[in-house]
C-alpha cells in the first residue's frame, strides 16, 4: 500500500493497527451470535480510515477490539507494534491513556464541567502539570474552533459543539490513534460536515491514525480508505482518492 501523498507523514514504520483472524461472539441466554469471524485487517499510520456498513454488522465491536476496550475470542490484535492480547487490564488502561483518543456518538461529556475542564480532566491523569494541561486544553479547543465557548457547560452547547469538545478532549492527549464511533450520527448535516473536516485535519495535521466507524456516506469522500463491512466480514477495501486529495489541498 503506497501512501497517496507526501503530506501524510507516517510515524514509524509498518501499520498502526493490525488484526489477524480475529473472532468475537456474544452469548445472550441460549443464543450465540458470532459478530466477527476470522477477520483480518491492517490500518496504516496517519491515515483516516472509514469502516462503513449496516447497523449491527459488528463495526463498534471491531472498533472496541482494535482499541483495546474488548478482548477477542481468538486471533491477534497489534496496536503500535504492541500485542494487546498480552496486556492485562491495567496495562491496557495505561496503553489507552498514552496512545488512544475516543470520540463517541453520544459525546459523553460531564454535565457539571465547562468545555475547558472536560478537556483538562484526562490530561491530569496523564501526569501533566496544571499549567501544561491548561495550555494543551486551550490549544485543542482552539483547533476545533471552540475557544470562544470554552467556559460553557454541555447544557449550553449545541450537539455539534459538544462533539467538538469531545474531539478536543481526545486530541489534547496527543494520541497516536484516534477512534471515532459514529461521530456524526447524532448531528445535522452542517454540524456533521464540521466534525468530518476536523477529523480529516487531525489525520493530516498531526499524523494521527484515525479509525472512524460510520454509516454516514458523507464521510466516504474524506477518508483515505473505506472498508465496507457486512456480517462481521470486510466486503470491500477502497481508496476514494480524488476528493480526499482536493480536501487535503484546501487545508494544507
Amino acid at each position, binding site marked *: 500500500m503506497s501512501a497517496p501523498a507526501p503530506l501524510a507523514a507516517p510515524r514509524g514504520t509498518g501499520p498502526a493497527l493490525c488484526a489477524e483472524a480475529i473472532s468475537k461472539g456474544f452469548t445472550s441466554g441460549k443464543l450465540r451470535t458470532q459478530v466477527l469471524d476470522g477477520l483480518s485487517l491492517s490500518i496504516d499510520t496517519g491515515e483516516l480510515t472509514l469502516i462503513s456498513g449496516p447497523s449491527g454488522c459488528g463495526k463498534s465491536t471491531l472498533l472496541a477490539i482494535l482499541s483495546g476496550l474488548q478482548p477477542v475470542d481468538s486471533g491477534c490484535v497489534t496496536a503500535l507494534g504492541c500485542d494487546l492480547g498480552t496486556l492485562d*487490564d491495567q496495562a491496557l488502561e495505561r496503553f489507552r491513556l498514552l496512545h488512544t*483518543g475516543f470520540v463517541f456518538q*453520544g459525546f459523553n461529556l460531564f454535565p457539571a464541567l465547562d468545555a475547558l475542564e472536560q478537556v483538562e480532566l*484526562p490530561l491530569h491523569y496523564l501526569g501533566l502539570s496544571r499549567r501544561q494541561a491548561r495550555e494543551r486544553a486551550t490549544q485543542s479547543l482552539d483547533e476545533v474552533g471552540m475557544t470562544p465557548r470554552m467556559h460553557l457547560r454541555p447544557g449550553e452547547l449545541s450537539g455539534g459543539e459538544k462533539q467538538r469538545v469531545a474531539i478536543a478532549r481526545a486530541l489534547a492527549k496527543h494520541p497516536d490513534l484516534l477512534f471515532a464511533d459514529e461521530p456524526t450520527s447524532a448531528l445535522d448535516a452542517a454540524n456533521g460536515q464540521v466534525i468530518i473536516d476536523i477529523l480529516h485535519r487531525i489525520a493530516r495535521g498531526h499524523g494521527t491514525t484515525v479509525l472512524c466507524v460510520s454509516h454516514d456516506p458523507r464521510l466516504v469522500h474524506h477518508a483515505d480508505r473505506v472498508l465496507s463491512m457486512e456480517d462481521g466480514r470486510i466486503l470491500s477495501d477502497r481508496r476514494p482518492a480524488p476528493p480526499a486529495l482536493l480536501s487535503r489541498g484546501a487545508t494544507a
Partner: protein
Amino acid sequence: MVALARKTLIFEWRRFLPAVVAVGFAGLLQLLQAALVLGIFSSAGLYITGSDADLWVGFPGTQSVSLGRPIDPDLEMRLRMDPAVAAVEPFDWVDADWRGARDTGGQSVYVIGLDPRPGGLLLSRVLSPALRARLAEPDAVIVDRADTDKLGVGVGDVAVINGQRVRVVGVGHGLRALGGVNIVASLDTARRLETDPASFGRPTFLLAALSDPSQAGQVATRLRNDHAFGPYDVWTASAFSRRSIMYWMLDTGAGAGVVFLAGIVFLAGAVITSQTLMAAVAGSVREYATLNALGVGMRNLRRVVLEQAFWVGAVGLLGATLFGLLLLAFARSQDVPVVLNLPVTLLCVAVAMALAAISGLAAMRGLRRADPASLLR
C-alpha cells in the same frame, strides 16, 4: 486538578439529593435507636449512676438493684471503720402496692428509702437538695413527673402504700426506671412501709463514699474478704452499674429484641442508602466509561466516586445531626429516656459513612462488569 466529584455534586445536586436524604435518614434512625436503647438501659443503672456512692454493698450475686436482698445491718459499722470510707448510707428497697387519690386501681411500685439530709448519696444527682429535704417530713414521698397520671396523684395528694397513708410532697424528673414505678421516700418512711418480716431493720444495700474515689477497686477487694457479717459482696459503682445493664440486656430478653431491632434499622438504612447512591452514581456511568476508555484507571474513577459518597454522607449526616438534636430535645421534654454519648454517636456516623462508601463502590462494580463497548455507542 479538575474537582470532578464536587462539581458534579453541586451542579447535579438534584440527582444526589435522594442519596443525601437516605444517608441522613439512615443515620438518624441509627442515632435515635441508639439513643433510645442507651436511654432505656441506662435507666436500668439509674440508682447507681444517679448516686454519689463509690461502692455498693449488697447480697452476693445480686444482678441488678431491683433484685437486692436484705443484708446484715451491722455491716454499716464495719464499713465506717474502714479508714478509706468517708460516708455510709443504707438503701432500703421496698416492693409495695400503691393506691392513688384518683381511682387507678392497685399498682405495684418500688419504694426507695434514702437519707434526705444534705450530703446524702442515693439519687443525689437526680433529686435536688431542696426536693430531698422535703422527704424529712414523715410519710412524704416523691414521684416522677412522668408517672403522676399513671399513679393518679399530684403534689399535695394523699395516697396509700401497703395500706399506709403517704403524701406526695414533690415530683422529680428522671426517676423513671425499667420494669416499675419508682417512689422515693426517706429511710424512716420506707421502713414503716415495709411489710416483709425478713426485711425489718435490714437494709437492701449499703452505699459508701470514699475519701479517694480512685481507690474504689482496691477498697472493694479489701472489704469483700470479711466473713464475720454473713453473706455480702462489694462492687464499685461502675461495676455494679455495668452488671445491672448487662442483666437487662442479656437475661431479660430485652437485649435480644433491641439487637434485632438495631439489625433491622441497619438493614433498612443500608438498602435505601445503597439504592439511592448507586442510582446517583450510575447516572454518570457513561462519562466514567468514556474516561476509562481514554485510559483513566478504575482506581482513579473509584476515588472520584468515593469522594462523592463522602460528601453525600457528610451532608446527609449533618442534616441528620441537626434534626436528631431537635428530636432528642423533644423526646427529653416528653420524658422519653434518651441518652447519647460521643462514642456511640461516632459509631453511628462511621457506620453511615461506611454504608455510603460501600454503596458508591458497589455502583462502580456495575461499571467494571459492564461491557465498555455497550456503554460507548
